[in-house]
């Protein structure tokens, strides 16, 4: 009987155009946009050319200074600051008119960097210009000390070397935040209409009364409907992951190089699917509760929207944490642990203890939700309008 109801409800869901749209097309569009955006973002630092506006008189010196910075193009203009304000350059260098002369003479010289820190491009150029000028400053100091017969080590007592313990770049960190968020939102948004339709919709259409008049046990009905909501979520999750994998493999260059799981690829994808299944079961149980409480589809949706936002919220708690900073609590707290596990997996880490904790704690909450759902579903107040 459970299978009968499950198959019928699933068929009904997939005949609904809203469900189809949210289940198949939305994840494809969302993930395509995200994947291509991040691929372009990864390539932007290397391939994109930025414009640095300088005064006409400073053009030669500027070209010499920035000859080693390949993606900065020098644009000599009468008013560099105005050029930045007009958006024709990302940053500008303004000197006192005798910058090169003063450096040569060993007299104080000044130079201003003008840019807009709110613009990522401008901030990048300002940072590159600052680094270049800093290197130039060091060179000038070294030359002056040498000419005075002083050892350079007197002003540079030590050197600083920065080493990364993680081979992953900043883009990978962003991806480890955004992929779980998009996955969670896609599952939540996609399974929402099905959930609202299966309980509140049945009450609104009066099909619930017809259903309750059959000799089918209410718990069987509840379980079948919960499984349908969860299945819709799982399908969305699978499509989302599939789209990401295919697009990263065939449509991107930089992301393909950034996401390199090596031999662990099948395992990581397999566990990502496990996370998707667990999240869909959790999400299904939560949406089921909002739909039982709602008398109409509209009412159920007004309950499910904030609840969905809350279930995605824990992802924010681990935004600034590296994989090595995640502690046991991050893998014990339901929902938060789903995001923590995905973060680990995206960093290429497979920890079976953490995976078991994630599955166990979330399924415990699912059982709790289903028990509450059953109690509500057995009461006349919640099954009939």
């Amino acid at each position, binding site marked *: 009987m459970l299978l009968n*109801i499950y198959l019928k409800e699933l068929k*009904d869901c997939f005949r609904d155009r809203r469900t189809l749209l949210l289940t198949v097309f939305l994840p494809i569009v969302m993930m395509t946009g995200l994947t291509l955006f991040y691929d372009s973002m990864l390539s932007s630092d290397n391939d994109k050319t930025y414009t640095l506006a300088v005064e006409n008189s400073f053009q030669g010196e500027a070209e010499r200074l920035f000859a080693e910075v390949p993606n900065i193009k020098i644009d000599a203009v009468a008013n560099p600051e105005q050029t930045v304000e007009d958006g024709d350059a990302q940053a500008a260098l303004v000197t006192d008119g005798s910058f090169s002369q003063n450096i040569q003479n060993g007299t104080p010289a000044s130079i201003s960097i003008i840019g807009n820190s709110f613009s990522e491009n401008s901030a990048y150029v300002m940072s590159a210009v600052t680094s270049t000028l800093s290197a130039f400053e060091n060179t000038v100091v070294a030359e002056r000390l040498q000419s005075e017969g002083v050892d350079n080590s007197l002003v540079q007592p030590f050197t600083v070397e920065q080493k990364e313990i993680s081979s992953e770049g900043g883009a990978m960190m962003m991806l480890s935040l955004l992929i779980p968020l998009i996955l969670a939102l896609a599952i939540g948004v996609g399974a929402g209409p099905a959930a609202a339709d299966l309980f509140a919709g049945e009450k609104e*259409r*009066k*099909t619930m009364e017809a*259903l309750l*008049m059959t*000799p089918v046990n209410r718990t069987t009905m509840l379980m079948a409907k919960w499984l349908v909501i969860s299945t819709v979520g799982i399908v969305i999750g699978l499509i989302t992951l599939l789209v990401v994998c295919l697009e990263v493999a065939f449509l991107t260059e930089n992301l393909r190089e950034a996401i390199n799981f090596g031999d662990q690829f099948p395992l990581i994808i397999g566990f990502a699917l496990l996370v998707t299944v667990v999240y869909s079961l959790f999400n299904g149980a939560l949406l089921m509760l909002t739909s039982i409480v709602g008398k109409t589809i509209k009412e159920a949706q007004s309950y499910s929207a904030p609840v969905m936002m809350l279930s995605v919220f824990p992802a924010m708690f681990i935004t600034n944490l590296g994989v090595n900073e995640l502690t046991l609590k991050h893998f014990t707290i339901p929902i938060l642990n789903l995001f923590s596990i995905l973060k680990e997996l995206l960093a290429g880490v497979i920890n079976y203890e953490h995976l078991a904790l994630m599955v166990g704690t979330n399924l415990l909450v699912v059982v709790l939700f289903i028990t509450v759902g059953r109690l509500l579903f057995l009461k006349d107040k919640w099954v009939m309008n």
Partner: protein
Amino acid sequence: MIQIHEVTKKFQDKKKSVTALKHVSFTVKEGQVVGLLGENGAGKTTLLRSIATLLTPTDGSIEVAGFDTVRKPDEIKKRIGVLFGGETGLYDRFTARENLVYFASLYGLSKHETKIRIDDLALKFGMRDYLDRKVGGFSKGMRQKVAIARTLIHNPEIILFDEPTTGLDITSSNVFRQLVHELKRDGKTILFSSHIMEEVSMLCDSVAMIHKGELVCHEDLEMLYTLEGSRDLNYIFMSKLVRGGNSYAS
């Protein structure tokens, strides 16, 4: 047979308790068609839902086909067909046949039994032409026929209709009336609520009138006409309500 014995139903709404039925007792004999009359909010739907096992009486008991509604609801559900409203309880994205097959499966009918029942009902209600079309595009009359077919898919002994012709046009209402005649011929026990006195006069063997949750009259229709000295059921209904204390009936 339906035996209603001293049934009281109270609804607890936050701090307020509403009594929808007060010590209602009457019997619907096998093969009888009984009309349930009453104003809006009189308690007709509550009574029908209680008989259908969807609501549990606060006090008293109901027996349907020899089974208690509280102790043996599943036995009753196998033997009873219920239609709340004229054309409700259908899945719009399913065809008429898919709707009927689904409910047949929930009642535990085999594929063979289901096919025979659907063929019978399609013939009886003239649904063959649109049996494989999606219900979402149906007219009210077509939907009503499918809804009634769904109610009868498991060939129940007892049928409950809650205001089955409300909101339906004259053709659809006539389809229903004709069907009740046929079901009566087949020996089914029918209890239906209605506001339409002509319909009740035309179809019923007896009537039960409910006013503010209390049964004010349960009588064989012919006997009622004799006792009241009139064959105008509308007049009789209003005079019964006057005796029941309704100021609108004067």
